[in-house]
C-alpha cells in the first residue's frame, strides 16, 4: 500500500517540517518506508513551498507525488497552485481563513480553522503546522496517532505547545462532524489503496 500526500503553504509556515515529521513517524516509529521531498524558491519566507510525502510498507522507488490522495494547504497561494494534484475523489484539507476551499473541486473537502484555533489555544500561530498534522492523521490514519505524538515529543522535547497543537488538530476534526477516512482500513480490507473511493 502506498500513500501519497502533499502539503502546501508559504515559507515560514512550517509546511516542510510537518512533512518531515509525518514521514519520520512512518520510518522511525513504525519501521515503514517513507520519502519526503520539497520544492521551494530562493526566499527564506513568503515564497511558495510544497512538501511531498510518500509512505509505504515497501521500498519507494519514485519519490515525488504527481497525483495526491490528499492535499493540505495553509495558504491560498498554495491551494491555487497545487489543487490540480488532487486525484479525483481525493481529500483536500485547508485552513478556513488562510486558504478557503474551492468548492468546485472534485474531492472531499475539510475546511477547518487551524490557525485561528492555535492562536486561541496557545496565543501564537507558530504551531499551526502541527495542528494541521494532527488533523491530517486524524482524517487519514496514514500513521498511528500515538506514534505521531512520540515523533513530535522526540523532536520538541518538553514543548507543551507542540503536543497541544497536535491534539487540537485531532479535536477540530472530531468536532467538525466530518467523517474521518482511514486509508489504512481500506488497505486492510484488501481494496487497492490507489483505487479506494475516499
Amino acid at each position, binding site marked *: 500500500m502506498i500513500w501519497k500526500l502533499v502539503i502546501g503553504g508559504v515559507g515560514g509556515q512550517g509546511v516542510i517540517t510537518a512533512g*518531515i515529521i509525518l514521514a519520520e513517524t512512518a520510518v*522511525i516509529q513504525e*519501521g515503514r*518506508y517513507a520519502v*519526503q521531498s520539497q520544492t521551494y524558491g530562493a526566499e527564506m519566507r513568503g515564497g511558495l513551498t510544497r512538501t511531498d510525502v510518500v509512505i509505504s510498507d515497501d521500498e519507494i*522507488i*519514485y519519490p*515525488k507525488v504527481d497525483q495526491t490522495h490528499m492535499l493540505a494547504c495553509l495558504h491560498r497561494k498554495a491551494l491555487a497552485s497545487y489543487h490540480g494534484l488532487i486525484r479525483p475523489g481525493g481529500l483536500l484539507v485547508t485552513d478556513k481563513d488562510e486558504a478557503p476551499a474551492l468548492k468546485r473541486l472534485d474531492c472531499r473537502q475539510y475546511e477547518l480553522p487551524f490557525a485561528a484555533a492555535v492562536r486561541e489555544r496557545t496565543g501564537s500561530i507558530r504551531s499551526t503546522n502541527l495542528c494541521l498534522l494532527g488533523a491530517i492523521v486524524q482524517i487519514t490514519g496514514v500513521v498511528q496517532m500515538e506514534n505521531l505524538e512520540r515523533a513530535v515529543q*522526540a523532536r520538541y*522535547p518538553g514543548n507543551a505547545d507542540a503536543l497541544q497543537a497536535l491534539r487540537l488538530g485531532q479535536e477540530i476534526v472530531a468536532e467538525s462532524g466530518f467523517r474521518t477516512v482511514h486509508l489504512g482500513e481500506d488497505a486492510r480490507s484488501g481494496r487497492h489503496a490507489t483505487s479506494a473511493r475516499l
Partner: protein
Amino acid sequence: MSTTQEKKAPDAAAPEEIQSGKDERRTLFIHGNEACAEGALYAGVSFYAGYPITPSSEIAEIMSRRLPQRGDRFIQMEDEIASLCAIIGASLTGSKAMTATSGPGFSLMQEALGYAIMAEIPVVIVDVMRGGPSTGLPTQGSQGDVNQVRWGTHGDHSIIALTASTNQTLFETTVRAFNLAETYRTPVVVLYDEMLGHMRERVVIPEPEELPLVDRLRTNVPEGVDYHPYLTRDDGRLPMSDFGGVHRYNVTGLYHDMWGFPSTNPQTVDDLAHHLHDKIELRADELAFAREFHLEDAEIVVISYGSPARTARQVVHQARINGQRLGLLELQTLWPFPARMVRDACRNARATIVVEMNMGQMYYHIRNAVENPRSVFLSNRIDGRFISPKDIRRVLRIVEGQGE
C-alpha cells in the same frame, strides 16, 4: 537542519535496538546531504574545508559540528579555491580530507582539481548539482556538471566520479569514494543532484567494519633512508609519507620525476601522463559500479543515474507489470565511463533510452559505446523540475512508433 539530525540520532537508534537486540546499526530518516556526511564520517574523514553553497550547505553544517566533536578539523574557507587547496594540503599530511560544493563552487575548484590529479593526492569532492550555467537555479536540481567533472580541468587527465540514486546507496557511495581516493591516490568526485540532496528517506547506518574501509598505504622506508614519493611499486601503487613527517620530498603541479622534482625530460613526461591516465582508464571495468533491474531479457534498455534513475526504475517496474520487456541499467560510476558495461547491456536491445537531467551529457558517451548508435534516444528535462514517469513514457511511445 543539522540540529534536527543531532536530536534524531539517539532517538532513532531506539526502535532498531528493540527489534534486533544488540544490533549497532542505526535507522535514520535523513536527507541525501546528511547521508553523504554520515558516509564520510563512517569512512573516517578527519578534515573538512569548504565554503557553503546551496544545495550542498548542510554537509558543511554537519561537518562543522561533528568533526570537532571527534577531535578532527573543520575550516570554513574564504572561497572554493581555498577550500580545495586546504584539503589537498591536509591530505598530504595524512588526513582523510573532503569538501562539498555545487556547480559555481566546483567551477572555482578546477585549477586545484588538476593539481590534485597531477600530484596524486587523495581527496573527496562532493558536487551537489543545481541548474547552471553560472548561479543558475540554486534551489532546483540538474545533472549539468557531468562533463565538467570529466573535463573541467585542463590537460589530458583521468578522474573517478561516482553517483547514487537513494540515500542508502549515497552513504555507501561516499564510503567507496574515500576508499578509491586512497587506493588510487586521486581525487574522487561524488556527484548527485539537489533532488537527492534534500530528499529524506530511511538510511540504515551499517555497523562499524560492516563496510570495508581502505586506509592509506604508507611507506615503510625508515627515517634517514631515501623515500621516492612518485616511484611506482610493482602493483602500480604509490606508498605515501605524511608531509612534514620524517621524509623530505617535493610536490608540484609540473611534470615531475620520482623525487617529485620538476622535469621536462620527454620520457619522464610521457611516463607520468600515461600513468595518470592508465591507473584509472585501464581499470574502467573494475571501477564500473551499477545496479541492474530486469536487464536479462530487456528489449528496451533504459540507462540512467542519480535521482532520475528512480523515475526510470518506476517506469520499468510499471512496464514489467504490463508485460513490456523493459530493463534498467543504473550507473553508479560515471567516470571512468563504463563503456563495456553499457555495450553489454544494450547488445540485445531494440532501443536504448538514456534518462538524465541535462542536454545529453551521458547520452553522447552511450551512443559512442553501443553497437548501434541510432538505437539510442534521450529523455531529459532541463527546466529544474524533476523528471516524471510521464516524461519518460512520452519518449518511449515515440521510440515505439506510437506518437506522442
